[in-house]
C-alpha cells in the first residue's frame, strides 16, 4: 500500500472553496434565517483553511454569497489592514475572483469582526458578522436544550434579570458588547461582540446582515428593514458609549466610535475605530477627491 493509493488524485478546488453541497446547505439555512429573523439556524460548519474561532462562520457565509462580480471588504475590529482581515480578504478573492476593497461604499459584501462600518450601508450590500458565541442565553442557561425551549417560549426573563442585577450591583447596565437585542419583536439575539454604539445601526437598516458562528455551527440573520431593539427597562434608556467628544489623533475626525490607546506616561489617545473612514478623512484633508458616505452617527448623535 502506498500513500498515493490512499489519497485522491489532485483536483481543482471548488469555486469559492466550499463544495456545491456545502453551499447549497448554507443557502438553505441562510434563507431560513432570513425568514425567521434572529432565530439561530444550525448548520454543518465545514473545515476551512483557518482555525475555528478566527472567523470561520463568517467566512463560510461569505464564500457562499460571493461571485466573480462581488467586491469584498473584510474588517477586524474596524481595521482593514489587520493580519486576519487581510488574510481572509485575499483568500476570498483568490478562491472566487472577487475584487477586494477597503471602501465601505464600494463593497458588495462586508465581512466584519466586532464592528459595523460607520458609513451607512445600502440595500445592495450584505454585512456578514463573525460571531464567537451565538447564544444570548448561554450565560443564564448552560443547557442548550433548555435554552432552545426558552427561545421557543420567548422566555427571556433571566436575560432581563441579568440587566436588573447589573443596575442593582453597579448602578447601571454594564453590558459593554454583544448587547442582547430583540429582533422583529420575537427572538433575542446576541449581535456578536459589537459595541453598544453599533447596535442601533442594525435597527431598520437597509442592508441584510448575517451573523454566523463556525465553531458553534449556528447562523442567524437580520433582514433589511427589521426592528432590532436592545433589551432595556422602560425607565432606564439604552445608552451608547460616550465617545461624542473624542477626536481621532490621526485623522482629526470626531463624533465616531474610537479605539482607546494607552500612551506613555499614562492617559489615553484615541483613534477612529473605522480605519477606512479615518483614511478617507485624511485624504480629504490633503485635497484628494474622495467620497465619504453618509454616516450613521453625526457629532456623536445617531442620525441615520
Amino acid at each position, binding site marked *: 500500500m502506498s500513500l498515493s493509493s490512499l489519497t485522491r488524485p489532485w483536483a481543482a478546488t471548488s469555486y469559492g472553496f466550499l463544495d456545491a453541497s456545502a453551499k447549497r446547505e448554507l443557502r438553505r439555512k441562510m434563507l431560513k434565517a432570513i425568514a425567521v429573523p434572529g432565530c439561530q439556524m444550525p448548520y454543518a460548519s465545514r473545515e476551512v483553511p483557518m482555525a475555528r474561532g478566527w472567523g470561520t462562520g463568517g467566512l463560510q457565509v461569505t464564500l457562499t454569497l460571493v461571485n466573480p462580480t462581488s467586491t469584498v471588504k473584510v474588517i477586524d475590529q474596524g481595521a482593514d489592514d489587520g493580519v486576519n482581515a487581510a488574510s481572509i480578504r485575499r483568500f476570498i478573492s483568490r478562491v472566487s475572483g472577487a475584487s477586494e476593497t477597503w471602501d465601505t461604499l464600494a463593497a458588495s459584501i462586508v465581512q466584519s469582526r466586532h464592528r459595523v462600518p460607520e458609513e451607512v450601508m445600502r440595500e445592495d450590500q450584505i454585512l456578514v458578522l463573525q460571531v464567537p458565541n451565538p447564544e444570548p442565553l448561554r450565560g443564564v442557561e448552560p443547557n442548550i436544550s433548555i435554552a432552545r425551549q426558552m427561545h421557543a417560549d420567548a422566555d427571556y426573563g433571566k436575560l432581563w434579570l441579568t440587566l*436588573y442585577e447589573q443596575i442593582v450591583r453597579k448602578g447601571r447596565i454594564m453590558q459593554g458588547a454583544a448587547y442582547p437585542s430583540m429582533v422583529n419583536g420575537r427572538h433575542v439575539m446576541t449581535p456578536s461582540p459589537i459595541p453598544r454604539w453599533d447596535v442601533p445601526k442594525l435597527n431598520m437598516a437597509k442592508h441584510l446582515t448575517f451573523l454566523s458562528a463556525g465553531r458553534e455551527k449556528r447562523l442567524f440573520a437580520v433582514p433589511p428593514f427589521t426592528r432590532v431593539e436592545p433589551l432595556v427597562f422602560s425607565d432606564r434608556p439604552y445608552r451608547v458609549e460616550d465617545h461624542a467628544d473624542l477626536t481621532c489623533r490621526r485623522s482629526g475626525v470626531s463624533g465616531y466610535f474610537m479605539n482607546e490607546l494607552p500612551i506613555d506616561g499614562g492617559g489615553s489617545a484615541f483613534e477612529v475605530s473605522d480605519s477606512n473612514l479615518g483614511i478617507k478623512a485624511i485624504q480629504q484633508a490633503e485635497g484628494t477627491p474622495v467620497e465619504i458616505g453618509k454616516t450613521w452617527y453625526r457629532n456623536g448623535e445617531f442620525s441615520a
Partner: protein
Amino acid sequence: MSLDMSPAALDRAAPRLMRAEPLLTMRDISKTYGDVRALRHVDATVYPGEVMGIVGESGSGKSTLLRMMNLEDTPDSGDYTLRLPNREDGNLFDLTRYERRMLCARHIGIVYQNPHLGLLMKHSSSGNVAERLLIAGERSFDVLRAKAREALDASEFPLSRMDARPIELSGGMQQRVQLAKAIALEPALLLLDEPTTGLDVSVQALVLDTLKRLQRDRKITMVLVSHDLGVIRTMADRVMVMRHGEVVEEGLADQVFQDPQHNYTQQLVHAKL
C-alpha cells in the same frame, strides 16, 4: 373526645367552604412513572380562601399531585380546572407548554421544600422576586424594585438584605424569599411543598406565622403539602390524606384529626416516636 359541631365552630373550621364555587378542581388524575403508579384516580377540590392540607407518607403521591397543580407535569389521564377571572373554564392539561407556563407565572405561586429548586442562588433576593414580574411582562426597573420590596416586606424578609444572594442567607430566609417570589403577583393559588421541612422549630414557627398572616390578610388560597401533622393541624382548614397514590380520607381538619375514619389516618394521628 367529642367533636364541637356547633354552628360557630363549623363556621370557624370552614369559613368559606361549601358556599363558593371551587377555585381548583381536579378529576380522576392518574399518573404512572415506569412501573410506579404515583397517582390513582385522584379527585381534589380547593375552595377560594381556604388552606387545603395534604398529608401522607413519603411516596404517597403528595408532591406529584402538587406538581400537577403547578402544571409542571401532566397526568396520564384526568382534568384540571381553575376558576380565574377573565378566563373560561377548561382542562388546563390541554394547554400548550407556553400557555401553561404563562398561566402559572401569573396565577400560581409555589414554595418548594428545597430552595435550590425555586431560587436562582447567584442572583439577588430582590432579583429573584423581580424575575417573576419580568416573566409576567413588567419592564420598569423602578416598579420591579418597588414590587420586590413590597413582596419581601410582606414575607417579613429584612429589607436591608434584599440585594443579598440567597446562597448567603439562612434556610428560613431563603424560604421567605421563595414566599415573596410566589406572592409577588398576588396569585390565585399558593402551593407549599413542605415549606418548613429542614428548618429548626423556632424558624418553622416564624415561617408558619408569616403564612398564617398572609392567608388572613390577603385571603390567599393555599395548598399545603407536609408529612408533619403539627404543621397541617396549625394551618389547614381541610385535609386530604394520601397513601399509595390514592386519597384515603378527606374532610375538615378538626374532624379528620379528632375522629379519623381510615385505618391509615388513625395510625398517622396516633403515631408517636
